């Protein structure tokens, strides 16, 4: 796929760069003219993203008809190397272009309703939204590491600004700071990786680097190091273990923000990066193993935590991390198509769930704790149904999209990594089905609580996106098998090296169906019928429960490290600088010169004969020096 793009530059596809630029110009327009436009220019950003979506359809049709291409323009030259900005249009970027524009459109439409009566400046919210869309689209289309890194950082900055949108809340400010610092730590790895590659190949251009790597131009040691460092960047952005701590706190931001950034687009940037640089990853087995391992660990530990969390958005956040773990695991086990397909399916479903959560909060007067919800389907039918579809999809219930993508991943893991990984993935899949069921029974079904009596359905501007996303959550699965003539399966349209025809591994499918339905059954027993009481389980495994609730004490560990080690070291350095370098080094020398001056001063006794004596001694000394120095002169 990537390697085949040599010469085909279909000019038609070239207009893809229009999507990001439109959103970027929308951002500038809102910032500059925002105050004077109605609704502070929100519609501008909506228009831009709609146009972007249109550009996607146009590019898709051009791409299907006559293939992709690489187009770049020079940014600036230094010495002998020139840095350029450019776009690459291939299957991966077209899929991502479509995903990002669609989800962004849905979220921005939804935000029109949701953000209306919230405090904080309406225009600024939409401005940063369109800047985020522009940055994400550039990231997706970038043809060289430099432009990708620029977009990567801008995406991080926008998430910082959006998480901290309600800046007057201390928790939001801290969450924004935490998010940006943690992703920043990841970006350090990414930048070092890119520079290592630049050092070896002398260019940032991705395709050239692949060719050089292919001909063995890069030493295997440096290649593994560079690839692992790039993966460190991906871990930061996609909140993989151990850098996952920032995503649950990022829920402080407005819910549509979480839907767009922390579910569908930004967090998958890490997965996209690994996919874009997959040819390099494949060359080093250690890297692939690391990716798979990290993916698996993340999936397992976060799925467990999702089981015990009580805040609705926190549960969804942990579920996102868990599913990102699945995607990384798929990539780690050479399941390129499976990973991307799950990425798309998960994006629609998770965006739906987040928007649903937002509409629930909107309807029930900002309720966030799932224990206070229940039986909402009576008061909020559309939201509940769409929310339910999302839950079922991600739970892996057939024929929804989640089932197909999870099945693909299981197949890939089985082929790529062997039985042990496969079993652990099944455990993770079971837990994911379980917590989806928990949400279904505690939030949507069950009996309506008294205080939720007055819950009202959200306005149409919020429910339409929900419905659209629900349709996609339902239908996305059908993409996998080749149903339409002339299109035989997602596998052999988007693939790595050779197309994988859609094949059904019967055994895996049966196991995955059994697990999902089993999961929902357990959920039903636990939460709906109370056959097994959730509380008793909680007592028996109280130790484990406490660990899970406290997020394995990772947050406290990080906070302890920062306070005790980093800040303490910083204060010590500040003190060291003031005491040693400044007071001793600088003032010390100054003072010693001054003291010597005071001592010299007292030679001047004021007595005439002393002065005369000094003169005589001076004459004698001069004569002696001269006398001794004479023979050498």
């Amino acid at each position, binding site marked *: 796929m990537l390697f085949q793009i040599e010469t085909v530059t279909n000019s038609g596809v070239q207009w893809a760069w229009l999507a990001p630029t439109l959103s970027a110009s929308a951002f500038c327009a809102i910032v500059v003219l925002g105050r004077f436009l109605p609704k502070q220019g929100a519609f501008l950003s909506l228009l831009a993203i709609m146009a972007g979506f249109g550009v996607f359809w146009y590019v898709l049709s051009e791409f299907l008809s006559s293939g992709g291409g690489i187009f770049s323009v020079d*940014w*600036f*030259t*230094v*010495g*002998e*190397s020139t840095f350029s900005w450019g776009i690459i249009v291939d299957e991966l970027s077209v899929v991502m272009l479509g995903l990002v524009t669609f989800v962004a459109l849905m979220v921005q439409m939804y935000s029109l309703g949701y953000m209306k009566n919230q405090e904080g400046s309406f225009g600024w919210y939409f401005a940063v939204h369109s800047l985020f869309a522009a940055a994400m689209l550039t990231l997706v289309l970038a043809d060289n590491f*430099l432009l990708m*890194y*620029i*977009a990567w*950082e*801008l995406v991080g*900055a926008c998430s*910082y600004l959006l998480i*901290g949108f309600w*800046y*007057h*809340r*201390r928790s*939001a*400010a*801290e969450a*924004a*700071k935490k998010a*940006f*610092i943690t992703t*920043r*730590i990841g*970006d*350090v790895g990414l*930048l*070092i990786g890119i*520079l*290592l590659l*630049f*050092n070896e190949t002398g260019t940032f251009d991705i395709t050239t680097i692949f060719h050089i790597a292919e001909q063995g131009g890069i030493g295997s040691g440096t290649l593994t190091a560079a690839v692992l460092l790039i993966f460190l960047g991906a871990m930061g952005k996609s909140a993989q273990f151990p850098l996952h701590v920032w995503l649950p706190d990022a829920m402080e931001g407005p819910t549509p923000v979480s839907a767009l950034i922390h579910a569908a687009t930004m967090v998958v940037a890490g997965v996209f990066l690994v996919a874009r640089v997959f040819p390099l990853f494949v060359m080093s087995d250690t890297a692939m193993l690391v990716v798979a391992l990290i993916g698996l660990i993340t999936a397992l530990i976060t799925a467990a935590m999702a089981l015990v969390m009580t805040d609705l958005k926190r549960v969804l956040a942990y579920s996102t991390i868990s599913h990102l773990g699945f995607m990384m695991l798929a990539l780690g086990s050479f399941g390129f198509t499976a990973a991307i397909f799950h990425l798309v399916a998960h994006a629609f479903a998770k965006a739906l769930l987040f928007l649903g959560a937002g509409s629930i909060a909107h309807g029930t007067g900002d309720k966030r704790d799932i224990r206070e919800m229940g039986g909402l389907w009576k008061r909020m039918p559309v939201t509940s149904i769409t929310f339910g579809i999302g839950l079922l999809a991600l739970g892996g219930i057939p024929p929804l999209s989640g089932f197909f993508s999870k099945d693909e991943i299981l197949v890939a893991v089985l082929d790529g990594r062997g039985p042990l990984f496969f079993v652990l993935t099944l455990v993770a899949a079971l837990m994911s089905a379980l917590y989806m069921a928990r949400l279904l029974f505690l939030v949507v079904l069950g009996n309506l609580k008294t205080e939720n009596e007055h819950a009202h359905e959200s306005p149409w501007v919020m429910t339409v996106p929900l419905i659209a996303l629900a349709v996609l959550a339902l239908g996305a699965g059908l993409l996998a098998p080749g149903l339409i003539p002339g299109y035989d399966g997602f596998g052999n349209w988007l693939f790595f090296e050779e197309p994988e025809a859609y094949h059904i591994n019967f055994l895996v499918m049966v196991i995955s169906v059994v697990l999902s339905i089993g999961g929902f059954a357990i959920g039903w027993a636990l939460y709906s019928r109370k056959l097994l009481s959730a509380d008793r389980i909680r007592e028996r495994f109280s130790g484990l429960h406490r660990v899970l609730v406290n997020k394995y004490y990772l947050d406290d560990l990080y906070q302890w490290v920062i306070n005790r080690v*980093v*800040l303490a*070291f*910083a*204060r*010590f*350095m*500040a*003190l060291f*600088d*003031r005491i040693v*370098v*400044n007071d001793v*080094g*600088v003032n010390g020398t*100054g003072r010693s010169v001054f003291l010597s001056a005071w001592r010299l001063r007292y030679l001047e006794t004021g007595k005439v004969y002393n002065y005369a004596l000094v003169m005589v001694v001076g004459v004698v000394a001069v004569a002696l020096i001269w006398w001794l120095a004479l023979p050498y002169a």
Partner: protein
Amino acid sequence: MDTFDSYVLMALVAIPFVWGVLLAFLPRERLQHIRLTSAAVALVVLGLTAYVFLAYDSSLGGYQLIREFQWLDSLGVTLSLGVDGISVPMVLLTGVVMFTGVLISWNIEYRAKEFFVLFFLLVAGVFGVFVSLDLFFFFFFYEMAVMPMYLLIGVWGSSSDFGSFLRPKEYGAMKLMLYLVAGSVLVWVALIAVFVEGGMGTFSLLALEDVTFSENFQRIFFPLFMIGFGVLAGLWPFHSWSPDGHVAAPTSVSMLHAGVLMKLGAYGIIRIGIDLLPQGAEDWMPVLIILGAVNVIYGAVSAMGQRDLKYVVGYSSVSHMGYVFMGFATLNSIGMSGAVLQMFSHGIMTALMFALVGVIYSRTHVRDIGVLEGLTKRIGLTAAFFVVAGLTSLGLPGLSGFVAELMVFIGVFRDYPVLGMLGIIGAAITAVYILRLLAKVFFGPLDPRWEHVTDATRLEGFSMAILVAFLLVVGLYPRPWMDMINSGVAPILQRVAGL
């Protein structure tokens, strides 16, 4: 037109100097007149710098707008002015920072006239350094830029009391003055040595560039230049004057000082150190790059431990100057161009930051991070500018900090990958303390004590907007700056490569 060309550099130095002397004789009472006329003069000078920036043809490269004046032939000294690819961005930087500095110092009431006299002398000195092609006059203006600092900081500065230790402004002023002159002692000795060793009895840079000095002469005297100019540029062991000096200085002086004077030191290293003694430069570069890396990490970590806003900005400029040293030390075109662009971008950024801290200090009369909280509600515009300045300093792409630091990293990675990683980690540490500062001072609930705080005035807002505009323009489209710096750095690198 070319007659104007030949006099524009002379005007650049003469106008601030003459205005400084003239202002001394104007009556003291009418403050508003003094301020308006000074702003007008500053605008004219800014126009001149813009003209120089546009008139410089980077495709030709080399020295342009050259003008010679006979001065003292028995000592071989001629007032020869000229600019090349490296000095033009610096001239523009000085013009911009000087103009915004004058606007920011609008609220100085106490002896405003003397303040502007000394301020314009300082500006004349700085312009002189960037345009003079004669070692004598380079040093003449170098010292002239340092001279007014004592009074500017001592009289109009602000002392700060940290409980456990005191930093009176006199101490800061005296320390800064003595430290910088101590640095210039080394430079003076080295300059005279170059004159004597040159044997041509002339101080002109162009003539001395053709002289090839002996091997160990260069090895002995290059460190003198490196450390002498390094002191002014905040090289690691000699940096302790910069935080104290900037904390004590009034806003516009610390803007001009951190923004431009520290670049004077770096400019000195490249214009005289590396240009005249390339062999010495090559021998001493490993030392400089290590010191540069220490600068970055040391500055960033110390900034994290500070409680005073101005100290944080002071230490952050020490850390950012570390990138400049690392860039010079790579001796390859990308690293050096990155270093020069970093000088320009960091100059604008620090000036903006000091202006912002000045605005906050003038409203709250307090700079302790522990006390300030949630100011965005009251001073939204200042907060927005501070976020932009903060993001530039942590190297967010789209702003000038990223482009410069990226090139320095590329340059450094070519020969010293480990130190390159240290630099990038330094950038991450910068991100930590900047974001902690933003979260603590600007975001979060508003501390009731700061209810009365008013936002930046239109004038301050306008001057800060200029600086932000430059950060964005250089960040998004650095081509004009890069071509110019390229043409400036190339000849120097040929001299180094030609060894």
